[in-house]
Each structure stands twice: as structure tokens, then as C-alpha cells.
């Protein structure tokens, strides 16, 4: 199961194709890899398809928008091929369309990889494995965790501040101008409170005997084992296979250079 893979290694595993994909400008590579990632996600996790689709589908629209823009503004080195049609001063070429679709597919690959990570990973454990396996100093690890704790309370904090304003007689803002004004009125206190929290949390941590020493026991003992490497190999290996395949089939395009 993906959810039991060591989170830090999982991150590295998805970072590698996540970065390398950026170099390909053909359609075949990202498409095949996207199919692989989605299939892998559903085969090895309990994520419900409905939830996944709900999260994924908005990005399809974003990707289409992105593709459209690229199609219109492709540079000459990429915009080879036949001219499909022209309007205003734009000239849409097959090369341009290819690059556009490639970029869209690539960004969907990113989303699929991120979703696979986010939906199967507990963020506390992620930080803990960064500390335990990747030797991030505990001071930084727990400092970040303490800050990260603020995230779910962020909404709560905002609610509280809004309630405070309401009981003091300031109603909900109406209109754009009111909203902007309200944003200003909230932003600074919200951040000021966050800073206060930072200070107090740090005091609280030290008062509980936190020293920042690496010598500590671990409640959640993280480790990297065979299963974790198997995951790593599948994700990275599959990417290599896709690259080789697209090279063999003559699709591979790196920076506009066809191989």
C-alpha cells in the first residue's frame, strides 16, 4: 500500500519524475506516464475514485487553459509543422498544438503525482521521516511541525477573528471595496496572532524539555525497508521505461529536439 511507504522516500520518488518530466515536450511521454500514475494510485491505495475525481477534475480545466495559451505563443523553434489556422495575429501550427497538449498532459502528471502523495501521507509522519531518515535537525523538524500545526487552525483562527468583529458590531463586508477593506483589517491581526502563537509555542516546547538534541526516542518509528524501495523503483523505473519506449518509438522530444 502506498500509505505505508516511508513518506520522505515517497517524496523523493515522486520528485524525480516530477522534475524530469519538465524536459519533455512530446505528447507520448507524459500521456503514458499519466496513465501509469493513475493506475498505480488506484491499484495500491484505498482512495475513493469519486474523491480523486473531485480533486482532479478542476485541474483538467486549468491544464486546457494552459495548453491554449502555449499554443498561441509558441516560439519558432517549437512551432514547426503545418499552419492549421490563423486569427488576429496568431498563427496556430501543428508543432504549437503538440507542445500545448504536451504541457497540459505534463501538468496533469504533476497533479496526479501530488494527489498520490497527499492523499496517502500524514504530514506529521512526513516531517518525522525527514528527521529520522534524512537527518533534518530536530529543531528544524519540530519547529516546522509547530508552524504547520497552525494550518488547520488557520481557518478556525479566521473564524474566531470574524466572530470577534461581529460581536463588536462589524458586519460582513459587502461589495468589492468592502471586501478589500475587510481583508486589510483582518490580515495584520491574523498574522500578528500567528506570530504570538509562534512565540508561545516555542516557549511551550522548551518548557516540555525539548532541547533540539538528536538524541531522542521516537513514538512513530519511521524506517525504510524493502517495500519502500519497491515503491521507489516502480515509480522511477516506470518513468525510465516510458522514456525508453518513447525514444524507441521516435516520439521523444527534449527541448524541441526530436530524438
Amino acid at each position, binding site marked *: 500500500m502506498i500509505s505505508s511507504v516511508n513518506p520522505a522516500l515517497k517524496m523523493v520518488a515522486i520528485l524525480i519524475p*516530477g522534475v524530469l518530466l*519538465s*524536459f519533455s515536450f512530446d505528447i507520448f511521454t507524459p500521456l503514458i506516464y499519466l496513465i501509469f500514475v493513475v493506475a498505480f494510485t488506484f491499484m495500491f491505495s484505498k482512495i475513493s475514485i469519486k474523491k480523486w475525481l473531485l480533486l482532479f477534475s478542476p485541474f483538467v480545466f486549468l491544464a486546457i487553459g494552459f495548453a491554449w*495559451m502555449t499554443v498561441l505563443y509558441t516560439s519558432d523553434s517549437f512551432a514547426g509543422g503545418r499552419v492549421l489556422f490563423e486569427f488576429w495575429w496568431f498563427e496556430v501550427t501543428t508543432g504549437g498544438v503538440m507542445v500545448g497538449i504536451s504541457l497540459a498532459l505534463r501538468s496533469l502528471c*504533476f497533479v496526479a503525482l501530488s494527489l498520490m502523495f497527499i492523499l496517502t501521507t500524514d504530514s506529521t509522519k512526513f516531517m518525522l521521516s525527514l528527521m529520522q531518515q534524512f537527518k533534518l535537525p530536530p529543531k528544524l523538524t519540530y519547529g516546522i511541525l509547530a*508552524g504547520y500545526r*497552525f494550518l488547520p487552525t*488557520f481557518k478556525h483562527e479566521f473564524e474566531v477573528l470574524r466572530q470577534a468583529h461581529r460581536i463588536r458590531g462589524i458586519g460582513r463586508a459587502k461589495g468589492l471595496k468592502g471586501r478589500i477593506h475587510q481583508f486589510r483589517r483582518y490580515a495584520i491581526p491574523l*498574522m500578528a496572532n500567528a*506570530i504570538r502563537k509562534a512565540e508561545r509555542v516555542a516557549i511551550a516546547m522548551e518548557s516540555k524539555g525539548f532541547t533540539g538534541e538528536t538524541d531522542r526516542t521516537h513514538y512513530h518509528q519511521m524506517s525504510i525497508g524493502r517495500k519502500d524501495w519497491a515503491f521507489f523503483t516502480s515509480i522511477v523505473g516506470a518513468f525510465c521505461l516510458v522514456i525508453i519506449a518513447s525514444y524507441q518509438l521516435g516520439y521523444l522530444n527534449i527541448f524541441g529536439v526530436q530524438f
Partner: protein
Amino acid sequence: MMRQWKLKEIVLMSIFGVVFAVIYLMFYFFGQGLRNFLTPFGLAPFGYEVIFGIWFIVSIIAAYVIRKRGAAFWSELIAGTVQVLIGSPAGPQLIISAAIQGLGAEVVFLATRYRNFSLYVLMMAGMSAAVFSYAWGWFQSGLAALTPGLIIATLTVRVISGALLAGLLGKYISDQLAQTGVLRGYALGKEWEEKRDKSA
């Protein structure tokens, strides 16, 4: 390298990272809207460039408030990672972009040996982050596929945006915060107190 850092500074830096991760994500969608708005005018590539500076702001704020080696780099890296964790469409490579942007800001502070935090330096840091991020974007988000004229134009816009939205706005926000007195325990707050004591 975390030796000279106090725990409360680390927590503050990471809280900045978290807060701005949320803001960054909001700006991502705002930028999307801006681009769709600009597309009919043929200005779509500038949609993001105009607001690009906002994505460096946490570096500037963290460095300006805490004034320690690494503040600019780590805060940006944290913001990037948190964005991925809360589901940014830009995906995991955002972490790397964040690291590179943070590095861009950090080199400017390093060049001043973490002694000068004037507006000028802050704006320089914003601009440097812009240049670094552009260089990375060249590979990563397919900027290389744009026409040369457009490349020069977008780079210019991004650098200006970095100077204003990161440097200038970052300083403004930090100063506003210092005014509320919550930064007493940090370098910027102490500077404010000294100034106040002198003028009093």
C-alpha cells in the same frame, strides 16, 4: 547551520511559511483568472508575470524580521512544500522552484553579510529571486518555448514585480507587524524599539 537559531525564530519562520503558502495558493488561482482576462488582449503570458513577485515575499519578510542566515531560503522552501501538501496544482516540482527562488533572495542577503536590510537590499533580493526563478522556469515550465521578444518582456515584468510585490510590499507588511509590538523578541522588533527609545 541551525545552531545560532533560537527555537522561536524557527517556529516563526515556519509559521510565515505556512501563512504564505495559503496566500500563494490563492494568488495562483487569482493569476489564472488574470490570465484568462488578459487572453483576449493577447497579453496572456503576462497574467502571471505581473503578480509573480508575490511568490518571493515570504523570503523577504522572514529575512527582514529574523535576520539570520538561511531565513530567506528556508521560509520559501517551507512555503513551497506546504503548498504541495495542501494540494497545489503546480505539483511536487514546486518544492524545487521554491528552493531556487529562496536561494535567489538568499544570495543578496549573503552578499551583504546579513548586515544591511534597507529597502534597497530588500528590493534587490526580490529581483534576484525573480531572475533565479526565471532561469529555472526556462527549463521547467516551458518558458523556452516562448518567442524571444516575449521572453525579454516577461522577464522584465517579473523582475519589476519582484522588486515591488516582494521587496516593497514585504517591507511594508513587516513594518506594519512590528508596529503592533508582536515582533519584540525578534531582530526587526528590537530595531524598532531602539529607534523609539532614541526618539523618545
